[in-house]
């Protein structure tokens, strides 16, 4: 019996101890009418047959050179990262509610919080949210709790559309108004609205949905001048290179939130990733999610434990800062090891390499006839290509060349039909960039 250790003799002895004869009797309090439905499940497989079947399924996904980004990025993950994170002691542990039996996980989370505060330049980080997009929704709710007043948030129109949809679903439930702030079609950057309209916060995406860098200092200062909180949406790898949210403008952003996936998390078709959320210490009691603190035991030995649990649902129930319980612990463990393995310098070198590769690719592609770059401003490792044909058709045609060319923006209602959001990371060598250019040239001639 897979994963069940009982043999017949043991089962019999246990039934006898319980005082029943048959296993069925264990369910004698359940009305018979509810029991023993026949379920349309396939027969079980041996481990060997299962492996064969799933290896086949895995092969049914085409291996592609990845030039897609839009919130999920192909990076090199050092071998040690998942070798360690997959150790049973991390992999199969529960949430560290018993701190004495969970010092491994707890110290990792404390280090994670420390790393995130240093990346973001803010004082406090929680121990993870589900992903970047739902994390942003949580950040908005947090801003509303801090600010009180009218439930409205200023959202840039060129936030990644996939994130915007999550805000719509989650914040819509609480009747929170999302006021769109338009972008300048010439620069692909945010156009400041005339007034704040009583909103609680401004979302400042650095990098935005076009890959273009925003004037974050001015935006942050504008938000503060209008009594708004500034919520920074950031790529954590880019932060090795770009200004930390805590340093934006005169006073710094109030929160920084983002998708943690670039920090050592495999793409896996979209998840599990993790959301990070950092804030000022003054706001820590409004922070959703778990938080680890350093403390001591009776003998004065240092140790770690969860803290401020009164914010959470298992204590505060309906009045908690969020309903989140299980979050993304193992992803955060991997991200912590990943950050340590690369180190501060390695993260910076990786970020720089991504930028250089993307810059070269952009040059290569822009040199093709008919291909335009709609936005000229500085960027990190993603940029928009304006093609003379529908971007999704071009993308599909490039699959035949083993290339995932990028993410068509118009599919999700942003930009023009020919706009393709293209990304390059350190994984792509010069030969890959050229292969993309050549394939695109060929495809544009035929599609």
């Amino acid at each position, binding site marked *: 019996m897979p994963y069940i250790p009982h043999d017949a003799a043991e089962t019999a002895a246990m039934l006898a101890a319980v005082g029943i004869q048959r296993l069925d009797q264990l369910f004698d309090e359940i009305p018979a009418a509810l029991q023993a439905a026949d379920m349309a499940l396939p027969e079980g497989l041996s481990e060997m047959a299962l492996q064969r079947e799933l290896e086949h399924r895995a092969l*049914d996904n085409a*291996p592609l050179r990845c030039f897609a980004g839009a919130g999920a990025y192909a990076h090199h993950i050092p071998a040690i990262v998942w070798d360690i994170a997959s150790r049973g002691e991390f992999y199969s542990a529960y949430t560290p509610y018993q701190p004495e039996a*969970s*010092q491994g996980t707890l110290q*990792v989370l404390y280090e994670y919080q420390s790393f995130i505060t240093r990346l973001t330049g803010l004082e406090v980080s929680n121990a993870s949210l589900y992903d970047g997009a739902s994390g942003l929704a949580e950040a908005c709710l947090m801003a509303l709790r801090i600010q009180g007043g009218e439930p409205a948030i200023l959202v840039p129109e060129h936030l990644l559309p996939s994130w915007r949809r999550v805000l719509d679903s989650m914040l819509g439930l609480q009747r929170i108004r999302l006021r769109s702030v338009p972008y300048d079609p010439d620069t692909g950057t945010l156009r400041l609205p005339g007034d704040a309209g009583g909103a609680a916060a401004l979302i400042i995406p650095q990098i935005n949905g076009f890959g273009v860098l925003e004037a974050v200092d001015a935006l942050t200062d504008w938000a503060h001048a209008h009594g708004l909180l500034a919520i920074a949406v950031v790529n954590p790898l880019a932060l090795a290179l770009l200004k930390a949210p805590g340093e934006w403008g005169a006073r710094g952003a109030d929160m920084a939130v983002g998708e943690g996936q670039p920090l050592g998390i495999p793409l896996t078709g979209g*998840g*599990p990733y993790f959301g990070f959320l950092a804030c000022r210490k003054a706001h820590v009691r409004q922070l959703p999610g778990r938080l680890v603190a350093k403390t001591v035991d009776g003998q004065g030995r240092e140790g770690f434990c969860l803290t401020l649990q009164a914010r959470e*649902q298992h204590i505060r129930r309906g009045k908690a800062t969020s309903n989140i319980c*299980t979050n993304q612990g193992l992803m955060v463990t991997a991200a912590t090891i990943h950050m340590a393995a690369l180190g501060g310098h390695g993260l910076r070198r990786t970020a720089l390499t991504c930028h250089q590769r993307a810059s070269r690719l952009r040059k290569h592609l822009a040199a093709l006839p008919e291909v335009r770059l709609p936005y000229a401003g500085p960027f990190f490792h993603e940029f928009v290509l304006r093609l003379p044909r529908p971007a999704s058709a071009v993308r599909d045609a490039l699959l035949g060349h083993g290339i*995932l060319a990028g993410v068509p923006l118009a599919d999700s209602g942003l930009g023009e039909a020919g706009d393709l959001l293209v990304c390059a990371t350190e994984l792509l060598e010069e030969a890959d960039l050229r292969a993309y250019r050549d394939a695109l040239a060929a495809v544009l001639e035929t599609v």
Partner: protein
Amino acid sequence: MSDSIFDHDHHFPAADDPADIPAHLLRQTPLDLPNPAELEVLRHYTRLSQKNFSIDTQFYPLGSCTMKYNPRIAHAMAVLPGFARLHPDTPAPAMQGLLRVLWELQEWLAAVTGMAAVSLTPAAGAQGELAGVAMIRAYHAARGDQGRRKMLIPTAAHGTNPASARMAGFEVVEIPSLADGDLDMEALDRHLGADVAGIMLTNPSTLGVFERRIAEIAGHVHAAGGLLYYDGANLNAILGRVQPGRMGFDVMHLNLHKTFATPHGGGGPGAGAVAVQERLRPFLPLPTVTREAEGAWRWTSEADLPRSIGRLSAHGGNIGVLLRAHAYLRRLGRAGVGRVSVYAALNANYLLKELQRVGYQAAFPERRASHEFILGVSDLQQATGIRALDVAKRLLDFGIHAPTIYFPQLVPECLLIEPTETESKATLDRFVAVMARIRQEALEQPELLRAAPHHLPVGRLDEALAARRLDVAAVR
């Protein structure tokens, strides 16, 4: 001689800034992260891992959490490069293998729950709850039935239930339980009315017993125009035997990281798939996977489900977790799934009897345990001042994880114990022996328990100090 990589501070020359990014957009102060060598990283985190309890190393009778074996083959399959290197924006024709796996999982979860349709996207149980009650809300709204602002929730329910209901814009009304563990039907009937959107239940309840009058409850709620939400956290108790859909539930979530053996990972990631009856299908969260007539698979979008409650994550959910759940289900098959609840119940009832034999008091001695059960140690507290917390901490000294304590809050000084089906009789017998010894220690040397644990990397930690100092990040 500390274990922390924060002790290392290596100074490598930093690479130059890129010329094409304006200086004011660049990092102003150097990134202050450590730069340890690879062996230092490996050693540091390997050693840290050894300070953890885990399923792979300890018995974990943690009620409500279903800490069962996480098959390693499921992990191996989920990290195959063909899955792990797949970008979420890969067009469907280039990811048929993954889509097919997800579609199969949807089908199988529908079969297991007796529901009509499934969305796999919620990232954990709580997000599943949010999606579920949001669907209830959308359902009433779609019918123009606007006044239903209240969600009924038993007092004993998990904290995420009321928190999720609130996040979905509901008012929460708590319903008490009776002394025998069943819901107080009279209280329920008192609250039912035109302002009630539905009720969130789990069955067996968090009290470790089956809600016997579930059909009646469903009848009353439905008659009052409300819907029933099933919190699937306790599904392990009835897996393959009772379908929530047949109990009268309209919508539910499943904790794949409990019932379907995906790992807890020290706090996630989980997956909280939602399953619904036909009438709620239009409201499912996006995306789901659908099979075209020609036998190809694709994601659904807003065009397919225009009345969907929307999206909960930027992509398709915690796919790596879903892959593990798929592998687990495929391995077990119909017969294996049916065995899960049988042996989970056998282990729980055996353990309950044995622990009673060595002197512990059951919260519901007249009831059959489900997959878990509650003990109360108020007798110890009265005799020697020993609390459930002390028993829990002392267990750690014997290499056994503590049960869940002080939840549900109804039973004073309670221990909620869930052995799961993957533990052997030998392990249970050892647990009983240790619990017997601890009981004796409690009576004879209570100070030993109060100071426990004694054999772990740290002793009992000062949690009040932690909250006071709030040292939540290493500052240089």
